């Protein structure tokens, strides 16, 4: 068990629970025809979350300071793909589905393993055009199409 993470998590959940409790005071207490307003349930849950977080924090005191075996973690690949995914999400509407998906997939494939550029371009192209064609043309769904300056 990771002591540091559990401490931070316990603290964050404690704050979340407290925030829900405090904020539930600002919700109207009255509901027509009922003396149990919309504030009761969140308040109780916030309270339980606070108590559980305190319990977790107390439990972390008893953790053995066991040494964690370090696993090889591929931060670089992960961060590149994460950044690409966030950009993909943000640019999906302004730039359109096909272009963003195509670029995201190429970056993703190449980050996972360099090389075979032609094959990755082919798969990325097939996926992005395929999904767009099937969803928008056949199923009549809505996806952001092409950017204005493109069409």
């Amino acid at each position, binding site marked *: 068990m990771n002591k540091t993470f559990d401490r931070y998590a316990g603290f964050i959940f404690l704050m979340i629970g407290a925030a*829900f409790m405090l904020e*539930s005071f600002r919700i109207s207490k009255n509901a*027509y025809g009922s*003396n149990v307003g919309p504030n009761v*349930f969140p308040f109780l849950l916030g309270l339980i979350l606070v108590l559980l977080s305190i319990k977790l924090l107390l439990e972390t005191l008893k953790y053995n300071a066991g040494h964690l075996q370090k696993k090889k973690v591929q931060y670089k690949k992960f961060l590149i793909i994460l950044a690409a995914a966030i950009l993909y999400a943000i640019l999906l509407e302004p730039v359109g589905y096909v272009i963003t998906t195509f670029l995201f997939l190429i970056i993703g*494939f190449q980050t996972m393993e360099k090389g075979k550029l032609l094959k990755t371009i082919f798969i990325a192209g097939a996926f*992005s055009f395929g999904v767009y064609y099937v969803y928008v043309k056949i199923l009549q*769904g809505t*996806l952001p199409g092409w950017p204005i300056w493109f069409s």
Partner: protein
Amino acid sequence: MDVINFLLDGFQTALLPHNLLFAFVGVLIGTAVGVLPGIGPMSGVALLIPVTASMTSGLEPAEAATSSIILLAGVYYGAMYGGSTTSILLNTPGESSSVVTTLDGYQMAKQGRAGSALSIAAIGSFFAGIVALIALTLLAEPLSKIALKFGPAEYFSLMLLGLAAVSGLAGNSMTKAWMMTVFGLLLSTIGIDAVSGVARFTYDISVLYGGLEFLTIAVGVFALGEVFKAILHKEENDGEVAKVGRILPSKQELKESSGPIVRGSLLGFFVGVLPGAGATLASFFSYIFEKKISKNPEKFGKGTIAGVAAPESANNAASGGAMIPLLTLGIPGSGTTAILMGALIMYNIQPGPLLFDEHPDVAWGLIASMFIGNLMLLILNMPLVKVFAKIIETPPKYLIPIIIAISIFGVYAVQVTTFDLLLLIGCGLAGYLLASNDFPLAPLVLGLVLGPMIENNMRRALTASNGDFMVFVEKPISLVFIITALLWIIVPILLKVRGKTLVISEEA
């Protein structure tokens, strides 16, 4: 008998060409999900909800719900079939529910009997699936009749019991499991309150008025979370994929495995009906049970067919059994059934006792399609098992970016907001961090799905009792549920204090 008529009507729905296609696609994808290590049934089902939603957009709401749920349930039980393939051929379980299958399955593969292990697993799964379905057919009506008599107080306590069971069995730390449950319930309060119409925790942000979408969170924490984990901790599959060999089992093997299959099916079914236990525990229990009653227990672990037949039957029976509380009571007993329930609610169809009255075509159509789906799986898994064995070799470098792209497409297609896409990625990060530190995710999703119902029933019960909380212990049925829930929490703690190791359910 009424049941037969209902079932025949169900078959009429299930045999419609498009529903047959949906069932086939579902079990096919399910088998693939089962075969691929790294994608579990939970993320598989979550990932496919938006895809099916867009595929069924041209149908009437009730028909669309039937078709989607047929496909999604197909993924769920299909994964139970597929999970055995990698366990046997590669010594790597495709699902947590196939972990015990590796013990004897891989040994059999080493001895060149992989084909018979795979086919016995498929036959056992098929038999178990049919047993569970017959039980489901017979129990559905009577159980939902009983459940119809429940008032809000009983429902509230029953849902508490469901949460207690899942939280009690999930993960190593019960504190963490409960924290995730409560956090899920809290997240479900964001948005417009269904009873009073008051906006809660929205802070005038328009996207929050509808509440956090269940779908976004489920796809995020399960599918993206698993993908992120796969990128960070690259798993090398150095093991040789064993040759499948002769597929048909010998008469001797069939004879040896018939007992374990029958016992595994029954045991698995009952474990599956219990909330919180699920397929992993079922396979585990049935393996231990077979070993206990076997005349030569020393054979287990060295490639005996019973060690494959029993757990594989049990996990499939459990996945069928888990449909009972979901369909008749509206209480999901596991993470995957919680996701199925979320999918039904998305179509405005409330699982529960009224389901059989209000939407008999959905309920019976699903049950009938599961009969057909199991038959398809038997056919898919016996002759085509060599094809599926090839899927294991899919390079993750293509799979991982494509899963991210499918998640983003799916969420955007249903929600059409950039906010949900960012929430999706955020949930993926949170899901990875929480899961890798022993915070179980299934209770979170369960809390999120059950939250609105728990709250409504609690408030209705309290309104009727003028705010007196004693109403939950004054009604006898409700009291029984609450006591059971308490026992579910207290007994494991007592066992832990006495130094017993507990079996925990990873997929819960």
